[in-house]
């Protein structure tokens, strides 16, 4: 999985592409988020539009990232999850904790 970074105002958008599953990809996400927090970039938007599959390790990485950002007084939100990802976020109840948007402009302005 690849992660491209871009900024929109104070918000850093992480464009993920590829599956967010056990191994490199979930480590990659956790490490990237940790690095961003160290750089004091604490408003993060995870763009999941190019992530077809997420497994329980991927969920774990998202939870971990959310918690680290929250502890740094930041915010982590979700943008455009695929149908399957949204279903998973819905069943696991993560939609009740992770704010999720389908539109980038409103997502960015919500921070």
């Amino acid at each position: 999985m690849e992660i491209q970074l871009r900024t929109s105002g104070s918000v850093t958008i992480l464009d993920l592409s590829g599956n967010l599953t056990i191994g490199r990809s979930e480590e990659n996400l956790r490490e990237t988020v940790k690095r961003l927090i160290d750089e004091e970039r604490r408003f993060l938007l995870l763009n999941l539009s190019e992530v077809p599959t997420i497994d329980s390790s991927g969920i774990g990485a998202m939870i971990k990232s959310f918690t680290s950002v929250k502890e740094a007084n930041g915010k982590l939100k979700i943008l455009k999850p695929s149908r399957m990802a949204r279903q998973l976020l819905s069943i696991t109840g993560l939609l009740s904790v992770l704010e999720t948007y389908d539109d980038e402009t409103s997502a960015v302005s919500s921070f």
Partner: protein
Amino acid sequence: MQKPARLKIVNRFGVMRSLPLGKPVFTIGRKAENDLQLLSDSVSRQHAEIVYEDDAYYLVDIGSKRGTFVNDQQIARCALQHLDRIRIGGDEDQQIIFLDDTIERASAIFDSSPRLTLTPQQAERVTSANEELQKLARFIEVNQAFKFSLTPDDVLCLIVDAAIEITQAERGFLMLRNLAGDLEFKVARDDGRSWLEGADFAMSRSVVEEAFKQNRSVIINDSREAASGIARESVRSLDLRSIACVPLRLFQMTENMDATTVLKRDAIGVLYVDSHVIGGTITETSIRLLESLAFEATKSLENVRLMHEEREKKQIEQELGVARQVQVALSPTAFKVPDYFEVAAHNIPSRYVGGDFYDFISLRDERSAFALGDVSGKGVAAALLAAMAQGALQAQFTSNLPLAEVVTSLNKVLVQRSASNRFITLFCATLDPDGHFTYINAGHNPPVLARANGETETLTTKSVLLGAFDFVEYKPRQTRLAPGDVVVMYTDGVTEAVDADNQMFGDERLEKLVREGVHLGAEEIKQWIMDEVLNFTAGLPQGDDITMIVLKMRQR
């Protein structure tokens, strides 16, 4: 104190072992419990005994099928004399000799063994053709030995003895690479089939290095004349005339359409023989045989390694089996079902232990609690977390805490205690005799509620899974179950069960089954759904545990 005596056992390939007769009754038979175990089919499980009475050893047949023989005479009971030959049933592969240690050892007995004809000293040079033939015969004999269940050390010993014979060398060594990557002596033999003593030996290190590092056979004949630079100095100082060293390699076979390709791999050790004798030249044929021998050796070592791995795997499976028993013991077999509902549950673990768990708990005033959970991940770690969660739920429910508090505090414990990547999805509910059903769905697949009239709904509270965030307050929802209503709780192993085309069983199929089966009893509904799932998967191994609870309100 017993008179010292031994059994010398020589198998048909000349590998010897010695067993002291140190006990009043020494047992012989095919079963592993025997002091001497013989694996031949013609040996009975409990075949014979050697008993010590009145300062003498007696061989006693204990009702064997194929008889016991001393010096080829069948016996029922017989006093053993020094050098008596014992035969157990029709087992001709082992020569067993009774040795009375108080009489001077007559080691010559082994030279008289008809199987051991090929010592180099005896090998008269009749014709070279005959010799090559003998070498081949020896080689074939060793090949057969690999089919017998020998220990790795036996095999290595045999290989070196055969290598010495094939090349008519004086000494032979087998060295294997240890974990540090250095070569270690495993076998050091002379041409009289005896072990050479010592931890290190004067040998041509440079030849060994060359064969091992370059992964190729090295042959030096009459080395004083050898023009080759390899090893000249060390060879000279040792005055060795003939040296052969072949690498031992692990081969990887790849089956093609019609050919088997053998890929050359790194050397794992070397087989080395040498000789001082002038003119003891190593021929092309013997080198080819030596290389074949090295190939057989590594193959059989690999087999032995695989056998050990298989044994270890069995042990792990056994341990998982024990864990599984513990898990089954935690499942609610002793739950006394009140008369206002019926319940049926089923669990098929994907491995021996899984991360699914379920429980029914009796509360005060005929109320009951239900829990169905799924720990992320598989195996013993997941099962332990499942057992812990189940225990915590039981303890809190029985101390009459309300549902919301039970789940909220379990979540806090899990966030603090469990590894960062382990979560539990949980559906947890309480039921009152009047049908009052209170539930929390923490990230779990929503159970299907089918009303007696065939309408269905799913039970969710949109609460997040357990073990993720410590700040979450879990809030219950309520519904009322009427007589005839059915609730089917399940884990994703049910809806994500796959068929041969990798299609999932799916929520809709499950919901339809529940709707159509609502008039059946809880046990029948459970069985029906399970049958449908198993039909769907057609026996394909499933990646996840399959767990289900069916609850049905009785007519009152």
